[in-house]
């Protein structure tokens, strides 16, 4: 998504000189051209194609070029009728948003804690880098494996349930441990906390240590220093980390599918089902709505912190 933010000024820069102003130095344009071209080919064009297809009609076996609102209409069918518990689309988005919120509420403080420890409590530079690399170690295996490895642990006859039964904490195996919202959130935390650690760590490392000394000299307690000095300065990292996590959860369907026992709705899953039934226009419309909502959320988050200025 950060790439997308950059692409707008790039495109503007490219368009302007072609039209009239020959005075503009050429070198920066050439330097920006490769990235601009890549973004144009692999980002802007597919996005435009998706937008166009979302207005097409379709049959069982073919796409019909057209301008129809059918896909959008069907998506929001019944949404006005609140008494029936809202329409599918609404419920699906609510379920996805709830997951995003739950995951962000855990990963952000957790990621901050880890980054804080690495940045302020670990003294040696070498040890710090070693520990930081250790954090990335789980990423050496595929995320599907990391996710699936929870299943034998949390299952009805899994390790956790056996331990709980043996310790007589519970009388019956606990079903809510697996194929539930709990297991989905747990897997997400496992998968995505690092995406918060990295940007927050980066922000924390750039804090001038003299500011913290100054705060201490001025009589601030440890909490006050944290709250009034460290967190405000770490805000760009926190927001970037939150954006990473939210965007990843919004578009996910594999983790929600596997850990939720396919019983929990997500927007990504809906799109995947539509794609597999060759309902590309419906999936494209769904993707456009998802994109709009994600952009909206990012706009709100970036309003909280001006990332470009802070960086």
């Amino acid at each position, binding site marked *: 998504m950060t790439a997308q933010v950059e692409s707008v000024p790039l495109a503007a820069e490219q368009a302007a000189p072609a039209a009239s102003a020959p005075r503009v130095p050429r070198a920066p344009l050439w330097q920006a051209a490769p990235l601009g071209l890549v973004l144009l080919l692999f980002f802007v064009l597919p996005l435009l194609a998706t937008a166009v297809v979302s207005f097409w009609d379709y049959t*069982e*076996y*073919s796409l019909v070029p057209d301008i129809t609102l059918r896909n959008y209409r*069907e998506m929001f069918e019944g949404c006005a009728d609140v008494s029936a518990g809202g329409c*599918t689309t609404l*419920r*699906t988005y609510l*379920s996805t948003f709830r997951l995003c919120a739950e995951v962000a509420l855990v990963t952000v403080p957790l990621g901050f804690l880890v980054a804080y420890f690495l940045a302020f409590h670990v003294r040696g530079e070498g040890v710090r880098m070693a520990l930081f690399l250790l954090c990335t170690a789980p990423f050496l295996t595929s995320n599907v494996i990391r996710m699936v490895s929870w*299943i*034998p642990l949390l*299952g*009805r*006859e*899994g390790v956790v349930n056996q331990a709980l039964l043996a310790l007589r904490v519970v009388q019956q195996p606990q*079903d809510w441990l*697996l*194929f539930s919202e709990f297991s989905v959130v747990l897997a997400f935390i496992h998968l995505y906390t690092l995406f918060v650690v990295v940007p927050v760590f980066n922000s924390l490392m750039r804090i001038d240590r003299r500011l913290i000394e100054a705060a201490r000299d001025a009589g601030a307690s440890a909490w006050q220093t944290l709250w009034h000095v460290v967190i405000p300065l770490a805000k760009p990292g926190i927001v970037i980390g939150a954006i990473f996590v939210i965007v990843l959860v919004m578009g996910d369907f594999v983790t929600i*599918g596997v850990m*939720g*026992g*396919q*019983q*929990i*709705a997500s927007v990504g*899953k*809906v799109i995947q*089902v*539509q794609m*597999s*039934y*060759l*309902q590309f226009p419906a999936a494209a419309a769904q993707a456009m709505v998802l994109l709009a909502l994600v952009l909206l959320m990012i706009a709100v988050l970036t309003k909280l912190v001006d990332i470009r200025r802070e960086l």
Partner: protein
Amino acid sequence: MDETAKIGRRGLLAGTALALAAPAVQAQGAVTLRYVGTAVNQHQGIREKVRQDLGITLDYIPVTSDDVVRRAVTQPNSFDILDSEYWMLKKIVPSGNLVGMDANGIAKVGEITPVFTKGEIGGRKIGLQGTAPSKVMYLPQQNARTFANEPTRWLTLIPTTYNADTLGIRPDRIGRPIESWAELLNPEFKGKASILNIPSIGIMDAAMVVEALGQHKYADKGNMTRAEIDLTMRVLTEAKRAGQFRAFWKDFNESVNLMASGETVIQSMWSPAVTAVRSKGVPCVYQPLKEGYRAWAAGFGLPKTLTGRKLDAAYEFINWFLSGWAGAFLNRQGYYSAVLSTAQANMQAYEWDYWMLGKPAAQDIKAPDGTVMEKAGAVRDGGSYEARMGAVACWNAVMDENDYMVRKWNEFIAA
């Protein structure tokens, strides 16, 4: 294939001339056929045997069943042979990407089981609800985009395998006889049931349940009206909200794991998945039910663009497939082959008795790779070929209201 290849093949069959024959095949430049299909029929054993017997290399491209349709419709140049299920034809044939196969080029076409050609077995009609193969078996012309109502010279697919699906259960956990599809939604198994999350198949399993519960009698479970879809999904949604389902599964391994780990005790299942659970030492039964089976069938189709030597090779491969070795190979895994006589000739008598006649195994039943699947004395779940295929109630299908059904299924998942 022309004369040199045939000489090469005889040489191979003679065995001793193997070293001489191989160069003869090589000299032509080996033919490679790109074979798109679900992994069901894509076995290394078949691949090696085809290379030995015909000198043809099969380039397996395993994809999910949804992707088979997507490939056939959107990328018809990306394969030379399509291993498709019959229900997919309702989506693929209108696209005009497949070509009718000439019955005159298929030696055993007259011996294909009447399940496909007439929709009957042993002279008795079987259940034809849904996309029964006999409804989509023939084309009026070679390049037609619609189906013919009676047998013609042009075949859509040459059938390879088919089977009758039912519920898998854990007899050790249930401890009583299970006889009806209605048991899937029995509150006794709350939190321990599962259904497959492939809308077009899942809804038919659900329809079997609804009918077994006596809530509705469908005119055609494979082609419901909107009202029927609504009713079926309402029953499923109520069960889901009540916590009936532990999880839904989407692929073979998920279904095996759910059952083997004790997460579920009753669920929709595929035959080899039951075998896989049993091979882990976990008791599992592919339970015959009084309302009958939901059947499926697959076959080979050829893309319109196939020409020349590749086209000849494709026909040669298909003829080989029906000639017995592959049929026996598939029968030994619990599937059924399209031409029974040739498969029987390639199986031991005790194997035929166990798999096809439903008799107790006279000796240990082994999988193609040699592992013991069933001990001597075991009887196949559901019994003989005629008992199982004769009790088919409906076939995997694409409904006319497919779009609506997919939307309702998404609603059900979100519920």
